[in-house]
């Protein structure tokens, strides 16, 4: 194995990304001499940073092809999702109380939907197909007369699949339903053109695209105008959509991050696709390896793979030289198998033995070579340790084996 590699290798770029040095450099003055409040209209300290906020807003708007007035700063994609979904649901509730979403959405969407159910809205959670993609006929059938909002993510955080946002947008526009898209994982990975799509609301985050944490944005369409009930009240910042003093350093960081993401998308896509292909080509030759999610309608950055008969946590431990995640980082504190993998029909065993490798801007080909060798070596080692692998090799149907699960009841007691 190559020796000029720094270990561990970071391959968890869908959890967060390293700040691009160009972004950091752009931010630093706003943490020292440029400390004014952009809302201060009466002196030059305020004017200077207000100008910087405007420029950053323009960079973000350019990156997703919309008007600057359609970008609202938030603290991140979770807040954007909350503002979009609750804000639209409460504003349009006189039209109806039905909302449609997907079972594989991020928790920031799903938990917001649960909260809306608690206050009287009705939510339909659609199952994706086995490849993770939404069947548009399935969506059309679920639409009712009282459907006011549809929320579908652009790129899935766990399995990297890309939903057909233009097509879903057309359905929503035709039925006069507000369409929200969680775009947290989309920026810098797919081309986003809001002027040419029928998306009404779209959530963004800076830290998934080599920007700082704690800053995001919500796109709110102006033509036709989309209305929201604001969720945070205060000084009326962001045209009343979201009060709170603007975090200037983070905003300029997000602007620069999005500008770079847009400029480098074509080159980065080619480079990262090559790395993904290398992973796929090497891993697919191993026995009992399953890729999760469609391999075509997918961002090149993501590979989610299950190694049958190997348990996920011990795999993560065995491959500690590479930083990857087992399911979504947000739920890795629990022992539950990934709800996304279950929603696409993977059984618990395969869900338990899955890892998510997410490649980023700073990963090299040598790092991917190292990763392939490490995975092959460690998976083989763990299979030597695995009674399930032994049973599989003996020709026993492990999936339909009658397990004595008496102890699991004790597990539940111990865990509760």
């Amino acid at each position, binding site marked *: 194995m190559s020796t000029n590699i720094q270990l561990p290798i970071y391959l968890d770029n869908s959890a967060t990304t390293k700040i691009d040095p160009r972004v950091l450099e752009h931010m630093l003055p706003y943490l020292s001499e440029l400390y004014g409040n952009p809302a201060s209209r009466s002196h030059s300290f305020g004017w200077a940073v207000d100008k910087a906020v405007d420029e950053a807003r323009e960079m973000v708007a350019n990156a997703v092809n919309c008007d600057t007035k359609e970008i609202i700063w938030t603290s991140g994609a979770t807040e954007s999702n909350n503002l979009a979904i609750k804000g639209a649901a409460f504003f349009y509730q006189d039209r109806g109380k039905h909302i449609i979403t997907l079972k594989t959405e991020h928790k920031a969407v799903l938990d917001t939907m649960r909260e809306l159910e608690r206050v009287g809205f009705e939510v339909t959670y659609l199952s994706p197909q086995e490849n993770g993609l939404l069947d548009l006929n399935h969506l059309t059938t679920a639409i009712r007369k009282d459907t006011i909002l549809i929320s579908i993510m652009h790129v899935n955080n766990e399995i990297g699949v890309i939903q057909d946002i233009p097509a879903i947008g057309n359905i929503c526009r035709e039925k006069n339903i507000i369409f929200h898209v969680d775009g947290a994982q989309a920026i810098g990975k797919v081309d986003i053109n809001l002027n040419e799509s029928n998306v009404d609301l779209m959530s963004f985050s800076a830290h998934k695209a080599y920007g700082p944490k704690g800053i995001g944005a919500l796109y709110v369409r102006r033509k036709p105008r989309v209305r929201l009930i604001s969720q945070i009240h205060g000084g009326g910042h962001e045209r009343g959509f979201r009060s709170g003093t603007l975090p200037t350093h983070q905003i300029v960081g997000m602007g620069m991050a999005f500008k770079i993401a847009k400029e480098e998308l074509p080159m980065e896509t080619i480079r990262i696709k090559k790395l993904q292909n290398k992973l796929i080509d090497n891993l697919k030759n191993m026995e009992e390896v399953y890729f999760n999610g469609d391999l075509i309608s997918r961002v090149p950055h993501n590979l989610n793979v299950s190694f049958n*008969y*190997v*348990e*996920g*946590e*011990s795999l993560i*431990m065995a491959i500690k030289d590479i930083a990857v995640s087992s399911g979504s980082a947000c739920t890795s504190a629990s*022992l539950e*198998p990934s709800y996304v993998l279950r929603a696409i029909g993977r*059984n*618990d*065993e395969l869900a*338990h033995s899955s890892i998510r490798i997410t490649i980023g801007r700073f990963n090299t080909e040598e790092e991917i070579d190292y990763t392939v060798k490490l995975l092959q070596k460690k998976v083989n080692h763990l299979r*030597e*340790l*695995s*009674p*399930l*692998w*032994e049973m599989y090799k003996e020709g026993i149907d*492990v999936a339909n084996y009658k*397990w*004595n*699960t*008496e*102890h*699991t009841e*004790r*597990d539940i007691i*111990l*865990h509760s």
Partner: protein
Amino acid sequence: MAYSEKVIEHYENPKNVGTLDKSSSRVGTGLVGAPACGDVMKLQIQVNDQGIIEDAKFKTYGCGSAIASSSLVTEILKGKTLDEAASIRNQSIADELALPPVKIHCSVLAEDAIKAAITDYRQKNQQL
């Protein structure tokens, strides 16, 4: 997940990994857990004419703590009588490996595996 040094040592250098001849009358096999729960342990003991466990082997599908628990158990079992083995409690395994509360179930499973292996051996040899 922060593991103790002992868990990491057993995980990285597991002792007594392997398979004994499960058709032998001297061998008792315990297979406990379920893949859906994230842990399966196969523990085998080989018992001599004096009723002493002279060999133990394991294979485990599970987290680092589960692998470490079963590796530790194979070491403890060697040289013990069946009654001594049957008296091993999960708490001593958990203490020895300094398992965090969320991983106590791994030691419970290891205790279950010992009992299952002993039961299998006794059933084979009509010693119930």
